[in-house]
């Protein structure tokens, strides 16, 4: 059969591909109080992270057969739930302490960029892509994630009123993919506040993972595209900082086939929730195919399920180095 002669671009819009590294390595995550605790705390943090950075690189190299892997590093600063200091003050401090530990940060992101980046409502878009894992017996009714704002890994406890009496019997919740016994989890995706919808930390972290995995698009175009930092002063206001900044001339792309996130073990529950969310997001199928094809062509095929592409190292919280006098 011959090629079609006539074509309409609006009838056949394409999906742009994005450059991909082998591994996107996140160099820990800090709360506001960690920054408040001063440079020593950051120093401890990066010293610990450094050990796992080397391990993650070695693991990535082994996976591609001992060649030099393309690993990009990133660091996410929370400016969504709480605002602390200014980019001009804080970022140089972070970069300095990272460098001191021998850790290079290639890409720096703001957490609010996972909610809205360059006027695109990323979190909202991902929310519309949630397809709930159906508990047995689901034959086509659409589950109302968008109404409840909660996402679970099974069926919730529901008080069952018996027909005859006012007796309420307790039904245990049930994990859909349970092995013998359930580990039931229910994740709050957002809450409504006076200032509008507040996305939850696990939900934004899921968006962040999808961005790092190169699976986010808006109308076929890549989103959260890194802006180069030209070396000048960082702005005084977080809102004036681009959502994703490329800090050096590294040629390794921000997004990657896999992600590895290094974090203190207090984040374990949050990241478990992130995986629960990732497991129920119907990502752009063309973006998915682009990644699958390219990774396979390089001989480093990615796991099929998106949540399986995200790996973690949870380490023990570094001891608080602050001296008794509180400096």
């Amino acid at each position, binding site marked *: 059969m011959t090629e079609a002669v006539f074509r309409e671009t609006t009838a056949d819009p394409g999906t742009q591909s994005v450059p991909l590294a082998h591994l996107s390595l996140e160099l820990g995550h800090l709360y506001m109080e960690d920054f408040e605790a001063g440079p020593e705390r950051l120093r401890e943090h990066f010293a610990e992270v450094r050990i796992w950075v080397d391990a993650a690189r070695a693991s990535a190299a082994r996976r591609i057969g001992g060649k030099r892997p393309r690993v990009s590093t990133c660091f996410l600063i929370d400016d969504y739930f709480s605002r602390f200091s200014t980019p001009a003050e804080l970022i140089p401090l972070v970069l300095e302490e990272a460098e001191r530990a021998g850790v290079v940060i290639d890409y720096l992101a703001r957490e609010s960029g996972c909610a809205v980046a360059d006027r695109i409502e990323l979190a909202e878009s991902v929310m*519309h892509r949630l397809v709930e894992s159906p508990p047995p017996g689901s034959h086509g009714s659409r589950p109302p994630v968008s109404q409840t704002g909660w996402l679970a890994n099974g069926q919730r406890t529901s008080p069952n009123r018996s027909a005859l009496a006012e007796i309420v019997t307790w039904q245990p919740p049930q994990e859909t993919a349970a092995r013998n016994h359930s580990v039931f989890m229910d994740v709050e995706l957002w809450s409504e506040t006076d200032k509008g919808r507040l996305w939850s930390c696990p939900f934004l972290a899921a968006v962040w993972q999808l961005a790092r995995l190169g699976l986010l698009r808006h109308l076929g175009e890549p989103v959260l595209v890194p802006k180069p930092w030209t070396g000048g002063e960082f702005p005084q206001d977080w809102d004036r900082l681009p959502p994703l900044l490329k800090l050096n001339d590294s040629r390794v792309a921000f997004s990657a086939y896999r992600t590895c996130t290094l974090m203190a073990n207090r984040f374990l529950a949050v990241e478990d929730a992130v995986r629960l969310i990732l497991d129920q997001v*119907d990502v752009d199928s063309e973006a998915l195919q682009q990644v*699958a094809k390219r990774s396979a062509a390089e001989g480093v095929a990615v796991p099929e399920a998106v949540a399986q592409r995200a790996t973690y190292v949870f380490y023990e919280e570094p001891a608080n180095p602050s001296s008794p006098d509180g400096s």
Partner: protein
Amino acid sequence: MATPGRSARSVLACGEVRTGLLPSFQALDGRAAAQLLRLRADEHVRVSERPNLYALSPEVLTGVDCRLPTSNGAKVRGVGTVIARAALTEGRVLQSTAYFSAPADGPDVRRPWGHYLVRPGVVEPFGKLPEQATADGVLRGGGRGDLDLGMISEGLLAQLVRHPLLDHKAPFKSRRTHLRWAARRTPEGQEPALDRFTLAQDGLRTVELRVPESIPAGAVAGLCEDLALHDWLLTTVVHMLENSRLGAADGPAAVLALRPAVDHLLHLWMPRAHVDRALGHLWDVLEREPGFSRQWENLRQRIRDQLAIQAIPLLHQALSTR
């Protein structure tokens, strides 16, 4: 390495299309159509202006884990996702389809949900799929608790007609039709075939097809939407002519009854306008027998003749009052 979406080969694709008049006084233009069908903010609505105005929504998934409908009572559990999408033709006729494909067999345990999500529109059976019984079961409609494609497509339609763009002032009364289809997959190299088109009662139509594996289920869904659209046009115009009590009614009443056909429907007839090229020729069977376009041509001619006859007295009147 399995590419996402390319799971085990599918042996069956099934769907249900609901077709009805858009509840809006004015037909929607391309922009409004795209707005209506924007089921996701981050994905394009496909809009064509040639050879007619046609908009197709992004595809959305519904997760299912339930019995598949079977004609012989076999109990087969299926898990996966059903694709739903909507199309608007000439800003006038709204259709929603729910469809899925199924491989010949699947494992006896449910896999992590992420496994199913990277295979959009695939429902995997537990064990072996009774292919013919499932195809027949879908066409006949499932029992309680069985996979319900009609409910999924109806759900999408219900969501769309609540859109604030629509004023719910349809220019005339019409009924929805629903068309169920089942396509058995044939080996590569075999020609696609339309084996049966059945016009049942209460607006139900069924279509049985054979389609080679290389043709995506979405293309089969597109063909069936096209068949459903034209069947709906025939059904609606026939109904309109019946109600106009042609010949019996006095002039102005007949004109009033038939005018919506001229205003809103007569220009919509355009078989295979947006059908995959590999499947377009399946229309030929229906053109030979019963002759869809033949019937349409006949209806159109009757309407035009009727309007012409009604115009003669008006002409006389106009001439005599000069």
